[in-house]
């Protein structure tokens, strides 16, 4: 009888140990590291405007400026120009008013443009931290000018003054 009881205790202990060891050991999984700041990924909301050459018969610099809605507070601006002079650096700004109106007041100073790439010098995208910019872009009375020194080489209306050449909501 004693042996029977000790056997039962033994089996209980062995069984409990086995169940505990086997049951408590989920296999380890190596999940991918997702550590990033939120906001990355593909940006698909944008409005692109044409920048026309101021001297089509001359240097004929033309292209587009694109405003991407990166987040509710951040707008990314991208410049894409053809026929810029390699090694030259161009300034680019958003001016108040349309080209037709003269647009002499700089509203937003954009990054310089590389003549080699036709894109911004410092970074592919110029970052604007303005909570309302993209949402109000359609009503914005403004234009963009690209200048070599003080000479405009390409310009175009944006916002309320022009229809985007490409748009995606």
């Amino acid at each position: 009888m004693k042996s029977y009881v000790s056997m039962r205790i033994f089996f209980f202990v062995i069984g409990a140990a086995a169940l505990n060891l086997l049951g408590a050991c989920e296999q380890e999984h190596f999940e991918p590291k997702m550590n990033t700041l939120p906001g990355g990924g593909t940006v698909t909301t944008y409005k692109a405007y044409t920048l026309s050459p101021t001297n089509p018969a001359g240097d004929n610099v033309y292209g587009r400026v694109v405003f991407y809605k990166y987040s509710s507070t951040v707008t990314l601006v991208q410049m894409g120009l053809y026929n810029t002079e390699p090694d030259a650096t161009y300034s680019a700004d958003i001016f108040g008013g349309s080209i037709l109106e003269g647009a002499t007041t700089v509203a937003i100073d954009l990054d310089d443009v590389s003549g080699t790439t036709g894109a911004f010098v410092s970074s592919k995208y110029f970052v604007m931290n303005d909570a309302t910019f993209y949402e109000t872009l359609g009503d914005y009375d403004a234009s963009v000018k690209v200048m070599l020194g003080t000479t405009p080489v390409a310009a175009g209306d944006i916002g309320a003054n022009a229809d985007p050449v490409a748009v995606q909501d």
Partner: protein
Amino acid sequence: MKAPTSTISMFIKMKKSLSYFSFMLALTLLTSLVNAQQKSLTGKVTAVNDGEPLAGLNVFIKGNTAKGTVTNAQGEFSLEAASQDVLVFSFIGMKTQELKVGAVSSFNVKMEEAFNELGELVVTGTRNVGRTVLESTVPVDVISIQDVMGDLPQIDLAQMLAYLAPSFNAVRSQGGDLDSHVDPVQLRNMAPNQILVLINGKRRHTSALLITGTAVGSPSTSVDLMTIPASSIEKVEILRDGAAAQYGSDAVAGVVNIILKKGTGKLTGSLTGGGYLNSGNPGIDDLNHGVPLTTDGDPDGFNYQFDANYGFNIADKGFFNISGQVTQRRNTLRPFVNDWGFYDDTYLLNLRTDKSGNPVITNPELVAAQGAGDEALASSLTTMEGIMDARGLEREDFAVYAGLPAITLGSTFYNAGFDINEKTTLYSFGGASYKFLEGFSCYFRRPSQTDRFNYLLYPNGFRPQMTSNTSDFSNTIGLRSKIGDVNVDISNTFGRNRMRLGMVNTFNASMGSNSPVNMYLGTHQFTQNSTNLDFSKSFPDVLHGLSLAFGAEMRIENYKILKGQEESYTYGNAGVLTVMEDGLLVGPDGMPLQDASSEPIVDEDGAPLNVNSGQEVTVKSLSANCQCFAGFGPKNERDEYRTTMGAYIDAELDITEKFLITGAVRFENYSDFGAVSIGKMSMRYSVMEKLSVRGSIATGFRAPSLQELNYTHTATAFVPDVNGIPQPLDVTTYPTNSTAARVLGIKGLKQEQSQTYGFGVTYQPLPGFEVTADAYQIDVDDRIFRTGYFNAGEVGNNYDEVIGGGEAQFFVNGADVRSRGIELVGNYSLSLNATSGLTFTLAGILAKNEVINRKVLDLNVENLDEEQLVGKYLDRATLGQFETGTPREKFIASVTFRKSKFSTMLRSTYFGEITERSTSSDADGNFYDQTFSSQMIFDLSFNYDLTNNLKLSIGGSNIFDKYPDVLRTENQGFYLYSNNQQGSNGSYYYGRIMFNF
């Protein structure tokens, strides 16, 4: 007698579906048929030194092992025999006794400890009633698993045998595709498919998996010994000699015969827990000039195993022994920490776009810093170190992972026999197992690899892992009987291994974010059914005894590849743009769209391309299929059958008491490639009572497996670029009956033919001291290897129309090879007093593999010279792996000390040096070959009998935490260490409690 015959035939028909319970029920019904004409004997068997009853001891009638029983937990037995019969009492580790029945009806037998393993009866390599190891004409190791498994650090059969028998190897892969999903078993440094595994003398089916990376350089199938619980095994006999003439295909290097337990009335079991130290290999830093190549960590690779065995006595006429095992093994992790450039500028500077030109922001931290006007931070974030700091990532997070896989395994096996009458025994055995395995399979996919990157799914890269769910089922049912003086054995053996393959943490890059991240890749299944008829008869009056055996076998094999889910093998359209209107191929910024490397897609003048509405343009060449192992698709599906008919004649003649000769002839016919005839002769001569010489000469063969004939798959190989960084390359293995093979001129596979020569000496100079030495040579003609990679440029002849832009490889009868060696086994057992003793063993193998003839080729290749072509056909890495990739020397020395309830075992294992050859070289043509120094590791265990029912064992393997040499820098890729010595896991420690009731 009509009724029993019909009942028996019904049993044979039920072979595949017979469950344990219906089998037992049927056995019970059959008791009515028992013919009991002889007298009943009873008895008890005890050990002479301590008087303890011996359970599980074999008692049988001499000349008819089929007519026997085993002792119960109290050492008792009962048996029916005639007075002229002689009873044989046989037990591992004990001297075999023979007692004439005469007038005795109750036996009290005392067994003496045998310091003489050469006295063990063997059943492998002979069709006749068992001879002892000493009397065998060929070398046979008898390993009593049931006696030693409790004292070993290893917990599965293959690893136990690898550390007990030097000629036996079971390399545990650290990963790479599916290589770690089955541990391939080898004998005499030959391939895993050149060894035949039997259970109770019946052919065991192989795994469905074709293991692509093996220790001898050629892909191979292997029996998965992990599917057989060690607790179900009484002993294993390893026949180290070609035995294809006796057993058929595959028995080229030898035969492993697993003998299942038959004991009843005793419950035995054990619970084992263990783990690896994971020290990180102290000192490895110095090898890389102060930069750590790997990381240490907490102990890992924990494993837990619970096993049990119990046997039922069936109406004193039969037994039903059943075993079960549940195992969980966690992975070990031995990362290779590298500096391969995890992020490139296109990632760090947010230069990437999708197929429409939309921005893909991969560095949102940079955008945030720019928005905040923090130029210093922004500048830092454009560097790899800066972004890793910002994200809290270390180089270890991008390391290539290798190590033992995670395994969850449940297996059960049974062995049963029932005496229908005094001459006839119905027997059956088999098992079922389920194994889940998750292994390290792939290189880490770095974010800089733009053709296999997706920010949404894996912003910092990913590490795909392969999983398999393997179900294995086997069943043998048979009848042993005697018709007149002729022993008859009729049996059917069925086995099936099914592997469902999957992948986790992966995606199909060409499908972009729509791809699933866990995928089903397909199922491989191998089925084998063997029906055997064996007859044997003794002629005691012919000289000193002649035994004749003959028989026939029919075997059916089936190999299936079933396709996986569609996303695993298709090419998606995440990189393909459908043009909506005529115009230029530009993005929102009006600039040309960019390919996967962020290079503009322009015409020869650098201008954007003109495209038309509806046109489909592959803007981004994104990698197709599941990363990193493409799923099996419709073109890979197979359902191939093969039938084999075989017949043999086998004779053993004792010319004198001292001189035995044997001979066997076998004929086999294969439905898919023709017929083979092979033969074997062997002899043993007793020079004196304790000294024998033996020799054998045999021809043999191995039929190409259905897997070798039919396997086809596209895998991604990684080849180092000029900077030594592995770059992906899609390589397809085509079957030899494919268009790709025929256009190139690759011939269909034929069988490997072998010639084996063996010569040995067995000597017992003192009681308890025994030595065997055996020399062998195995010549294999037309050994099957897999070729190197052929691409369309090399082949010419418009080969790109057949294989496209990838590369192709094939199975070929690539070379004639030779394996030579000397095997030494020495045992010395010393009884110090009644309760204590010492046992010394020293066993070793000195072997040499060489390719003796590479094939002369006649392939349709335009742009390779003859030397290059031969190099492709059997490349130097494969050739080197065969010749020098496994240790030429392996020695195992152990000493075991027993005193009363305590025992301890110290064992050292020596692995000779190995050399791995590479196909890559530096600019001067110096290949990146490497010789790895020899290794010695030590195992230690302590065992104590707590009570008569409980035993404790603790110990370790590789207790001094010895790691093999680190790979040279150029070869550091998926692995940091070679697999082929002691492996890369370092020291392992375990504790075990064993019980018996």
